[in-house]
């Protein structure tokens, strides 16, 4: 386990300024994730799930403690280094999809590859592969406003997965989807986790998501509450 460690936090504390005082959203989190895990942060609203996910995703920094992601210390990265980490190694999936509305499905998925300067034919093949994974090859010319919520989230998954990142961070990916779409998407992600060995870390309080997780990390009030690994 130790040698394939991909995410590790030690005494991670995050404080936000709140007027004149401070609000502590994470209170000394110790957490380790190995490569290829399919794990989720579970907890009620305000428990700190998103905050933790954002720090792991180098979009935010810890106030105290250590966060190591892919052998990099998140607290010590420069803006450029953090951007590079996200660009090369991390995929994000958001509750509200965050697709680029003026771009087609194809272009949305292509975008991360353009940032990585991947050449034409190779790029095209990767985009089409990713769209195949999520079953959207027939919608490549459409734009996000013309798609259903489920389709949008599948585009978002394709965009997160197209560069085969080491880690995918998914914050409430099913919150805006109905049951059928939620299951469809989760099955897609389980499949990708198996085939590509991508590490998944969710933040959720959706029972449907929780039922798919291999590891359930419960947060309560900014602290680690329970950490269950599903045996099968």
């Amino acid at each position: 386990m130790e040698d394939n460690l991909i995410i590790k936090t030690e005494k991670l504390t995050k404080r936000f300024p709140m007027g004149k005082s401070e609000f502590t959203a994470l209170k000394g989190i110790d957490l380790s994730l190995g490569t290829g895990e399919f794990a989720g942060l579970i907890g009620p609203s305000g428990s700190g799930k998103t905050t933790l996910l954002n720090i792991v995703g180098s979009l935010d920094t810890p106030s105290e403690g250590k966060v190591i992601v892919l052998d990099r210390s998140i607290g010590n990265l420069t803006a450029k280094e953090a951007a590079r980490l996200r660009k090369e190694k991390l995929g994000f999936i958001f509750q509200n999809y965050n697709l680029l509305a003026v771009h087609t499905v194809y272009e949305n998925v292509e975008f991360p590859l353009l940032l990585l300067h991947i050449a034409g034919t190779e790029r095209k093949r990767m985009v089409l592969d990713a769209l195949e994974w999520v079953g959207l090859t027939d919608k490549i010319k459409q734009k996000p406003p013309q798609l259903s919520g489920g389709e949008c989230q599948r585009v978002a998954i394709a965009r997160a997965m197209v560069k085969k990142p080491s880690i995918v961070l998914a914050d409430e990916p099913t919150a805006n989807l109905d049951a059928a779409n939620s299951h469809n998407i989760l099955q897609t992600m389980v499949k990708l986790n198996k085939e590509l060995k991508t590490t998944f870390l969710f933040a959720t309080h959706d029972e449907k998501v929780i039922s798919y997780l291999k590891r359930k990390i419960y947060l309560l009030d900014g602290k680690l509450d329970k950490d269950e690994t599903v045996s099968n």
Partner: protein
Amino acid sequence: MKLALKLAYKNLIGAGLRTWLNVIVLSFSFVLIIAAKGILVGWDRQAKLDMTNWEIGGGQYWNINYDPYDAFTLEDAHAPVPSQLGADIEAGDMIPVLIAQGTIYPEGRMQSILLKGIDPDQTILELPTRKLDTLVGATPVIIGSNMARANKLEVGDYVTIRWRDANGTFDATDICITEIFSTNVPTVDLAQVWLPMDSLQSMLLLSGEATLLTFRDREKPRDEIANWKLMSYKALVQDIEEMIKTKSVGQSIFYTILLLLALLAIFDTQVLSIFRRQKEIGTYVALGYTRREVVGLFTIEGGMHAVLAAVVGALYGIPLLIWFARTGITLGVTSADYGFAIADTMYPVYSGTLVIGTTLVVLLTTTIVSYWPSRKIARMNPTEALRGRLQ
């Protein structure tokens, strides 16, 4: 950079109507600046050309006492033509002009005029001096159309003039108008009568003398001559240049305001866009942009308004400007209002420098007003932006 350009273009086009409104307003300033400047350049050129052809040639020597703004200097402003200029005059590359004050009596009224003597055979100026060679029952003279209109004179009319000769003695004679010419240069037209040089010299008892000498060649180096002032072409057209400069300032106030309005609209769009597109900004960061790079992206996007405006402006501006240049623009002012050469119809001239310069200025200012609000992105918290929670 290529990706940023592509992205910026997509975003701009994607924004639809708002973009096109900004672009069209900006393109107005574009076309207007080029049109307005083109008119001034055309004016400047035409005025100088008219002056050259009708009055100053390639430059002049003035008698040391001569002051064109003070008619009373004329009494003393004459001297024998310097002998070293004889060859030039002989060759027809220089013409002496003698000027004196006089009075004309058309239909019993009287008006002060300038009597100007010039060689009928001269070829430097466009004045139809050949008509001074006409055989009539009095001294043949030519006058400009404004002078003719003001005094109700016509070709073939006989009229009396009066002057004082070199000894201060009054004398009078009849003249006959043999030609009326039309010119945009009021200083050879209004209150002036052109006579054959020989006639004027003998009327004034100033044989062989002149007030000024006009030469043909602008480039040829000229010697200083004692008691004569060398007036270069540049010095003689200085008044025009000054006037154009004044006009130019007035004009630029006008189109600067238009440009500012267009820039304000773009600034506004940028501010709004940064507020409305927080999630998009957050997404760029999540996908691996630094915030600085997003600032760059938004700046390019704003600056690209200018590129689109150049294209749109070209679509209607090029045909419009070409049409202007062909048909000219009638300004409804006359030379008399200004005291020097103005054609009734102005033909704008657009240079490459003008077009490229204007494009660069518009591009630069647009980019600056786009960058300004975009800097805010660099201070944005990406996690807050992703949630669209920034105020």
